[in-house]
């Protein structure tokens, strides 16, 4: 057992940190978007940054060299992810989706042409995918999806509706799950497609999130014709491809690192803020609360480290990722709620208010943290997975 990083890894961490200190644009820091807060302006900054990152090889550091990757070790990827999140680097959530799910799926299931067409571009930061998974009646129960893809000549014709398509209005491609055999049972007959978002027949309707940002979309497919070659992997076996992809490296380290930063800022605030002549940091209840946040976040960090370590050993975490995700989601909500209590009325103030403190991050986090632990991979579903996959408890 060994809890330290190697000297080489520590050097790498310092390199990343230093680079980030120089490269994160000032304007981004001013905009200070939290999760689900990106605007078109911040999106543009993020895409620019993404390309810079790719030039360092750090956008898709694990990819084989032929696709522009560095074949970086799992531990260094962990370090990179930790530093990126802690430094609040300009990266949209869709980058993670594209780099960590879509491209690895293509490498695993795609044709040589698909690999050539997409993987390097992804590694270069040139293209971004959005996910076309959820539908109005297929959320937690994703396998109920109804969007149809019908083979017609050299093409597939897609009809249906997707929802919660994050940044669909800004992405280049959609990674679409559609039903190719309506007569098969629920989990059979689903296939995966790459759909250019500029294809005629696609209509996007924005969904404004509770942070008052346009991050999600409903996407309507109305006789959308795509070339047959855009099918990824085996026809009708898409569900199983999706399930395998779910076990791809998903680490909650980014959440834990970002939350660490928030906790540190709360500690700083408590130390620097005096109320009626007494620093907040002297209040035993506040001290106890902040200490508890630090404890929880450290546990969350260890859980995230475990995932990376398992990968580094060639093990495949499954329920361990669920644990890690459920746990960090609760730590983040706890942090946001405790943050508001510590800040009091100041915790209510939004970014544009004269008296706002900590860049109103706590107030925004009260809202954004609601998104973690809900939706498709909700905490309830994750706990089912832990119980059944992890502990072998029976389904019936």
């Amino acid at each position, binding site marked *: 057992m060994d809890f330290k990083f190697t000297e080489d890894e520590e050097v790498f961490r310092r390199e990343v940190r230093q680079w980030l200190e120089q490269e994160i644009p000032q304007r981004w820091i001013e905009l200070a978007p939290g999760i689900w807060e990106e605007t078109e302006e911040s999106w543009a900054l993020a895409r620019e940054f993404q390309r810079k990152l790719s030039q360092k090889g750090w956008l898709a550091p694990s990819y084989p060299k032929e696709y522009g990757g560095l074949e970086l070790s799992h531990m260094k990827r962990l370090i990179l992810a930790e530093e990126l999140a802690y430094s609040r680097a300009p990266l949209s959530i869709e980058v993670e989706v594209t780099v960590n799910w879509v491209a690895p799926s293509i490498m695993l299931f795609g044709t040589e042409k698909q690999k050539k067409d997409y993987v390097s571009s992804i590694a270069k930061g040139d293209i971004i995918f959005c996910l076309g998974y959820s539908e109005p*009646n297929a959320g937690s129960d994703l396998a109920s999806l109804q969007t149809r893809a019908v083979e017609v000549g050299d093409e597939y014709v897609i009809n249906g509706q997707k929802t919660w398509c994050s940044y669909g209005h800004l992405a280049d491609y959609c990674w679409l799950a559609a039903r190719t055999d309506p007569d098969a049972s629920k989990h059979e007959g689903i296939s995966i497609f790459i759909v250019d978002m500029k294809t005629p027949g696609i209509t996007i309707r924005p969904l*404004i999130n509770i942070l008052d940002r346009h991050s999600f979309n409903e996407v309507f497919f109305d006789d959308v014709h795509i070339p047959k070659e855009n099918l990824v992997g085996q026809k009708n076996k898409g569900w199983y491809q999706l399930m395998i992809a779910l076990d791809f490296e998903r680490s909650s380290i980014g959440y834990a690192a970002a939350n660490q930063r928030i906790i540190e800022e709360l500690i700083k605030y408590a130390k620097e803020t005096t109320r009626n002549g007494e620093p907040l940091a002297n209040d035993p209840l506040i001290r106890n609360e902040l200490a508890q946040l630090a404890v929880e976040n450290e546990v969350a960090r260890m859980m995230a480290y475990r995932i990376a370590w398992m990968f580094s050993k060639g093990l495949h975490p499954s329920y361990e990722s669920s644990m890690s995700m459920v746990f960090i989601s609760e730590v983040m*909500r706890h942090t946001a709620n405790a943050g508001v209590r510590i800040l009091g009325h100041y915790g*209510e103030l939004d970014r544009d*208010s004269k008296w706002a403190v900590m860049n109103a991050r706590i107030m925004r986090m*009260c*809202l954004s943290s609601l998104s973690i632990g*809900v939706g498709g991979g909700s905490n309830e579903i994750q706990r089912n997975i832990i119980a059944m996959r992890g502990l072998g408890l029976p389904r019936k």
Partner: protein
Amino acid sequence: MDLGLSEEQAMLKELARDFLQKECPKRLVRQLDESDEGYSSELWHKMAELGWMGLVFPEKYGGSERNFLDLTILLEEMGYNIVPGPFFSAVVLGGLTILTAGSEEQKIEFLPKIASGEMILSLALTEPTASYDAASVKTKAIARNGEYVIKGTKLFVLNANVADYILCVARTKETKNPEDGITIFLVDAKSPGVKCTLLKTLARDKQCEVVFDNVTVSEKSIVGERDKGWPIVKDVLQKATVAKCAEMVGGAQAALDMAVNYAKERVQFGRPIGSFQAIQHYCANMATDVSGSRFITYKAAWKVSEGLPLALDIAIAKAWTSEAYGRVTLSAHQIFGAIGFTMDHDIHLYYRQAKAAEIIFGDADFQRAIIARELGL
């Protein structure tokens, strides 16, 4: 002992629910939340016509002489519908202060206007310390030629942006005891030197910064006695705390109802999600939280109505209800999942209210400090 509503109360509740459902749809709530004023003059006057603003005022001041408990029942329904606007400021913070401590002259001047909806009041108490203690009152009112000059910054002042008059809590004397030497002034919001800036908040309620830059007021504008204002503030804060609990009870009930209805309708894996035990247990816990909050709040409100000692009961009500409302709205979000994360959905309106209500008049830790004291600790 009777934990039920009287016939009159039940009628008031039903009338309020029906009226608000019709006249204050969520579309309007949303629109008002986004507006700068934060209220609809049309709805405001309709509410006034129903006698809501003067509900607890004596008839001679244009009121209908109902008791405080009746007011909390109305507030519960307003919380159920999260009616935006300065009702709380005008009636609870403003009206009750004048009713309790104002001179006959002031009552005659202000209460009928509040009751008729003509006049909006706001209470400017908290300052940059954001605390509810007397020591935090640093705004000064200096006597000069039979007048007073007020100077200071008030923060988190609800609805000051639309107030006609602002009740400004100011220090008129420096003594060792911070509760001594505080005076309440009724300040015309249009007075020279009053500057109000709207703050953008989580609940999109209309909290303001109000700067009093050498604002001159007459001696007649004092509510109660000079230097003896703090007991009045304490009294109105206690009533306001119960009133806020009532709003929370209504809001929590609404969040529960919405979540339960959704759980019955939303089908996943071939069955309503409300048939999953995890969701059932969330709902059961929510319902328990709502029930507990309701009775503990009614009890405190009843004590106000009866004029009984109430510091402990009010702190208990706020400590419990504010945390319960938070839990209920969080669970509701968990049940709604992604759909609840959209601006178009209503549930987040309640979640925001819960956060604001948790903080105002002191959070649960603050209340528990009071409780500990009351328990002799």
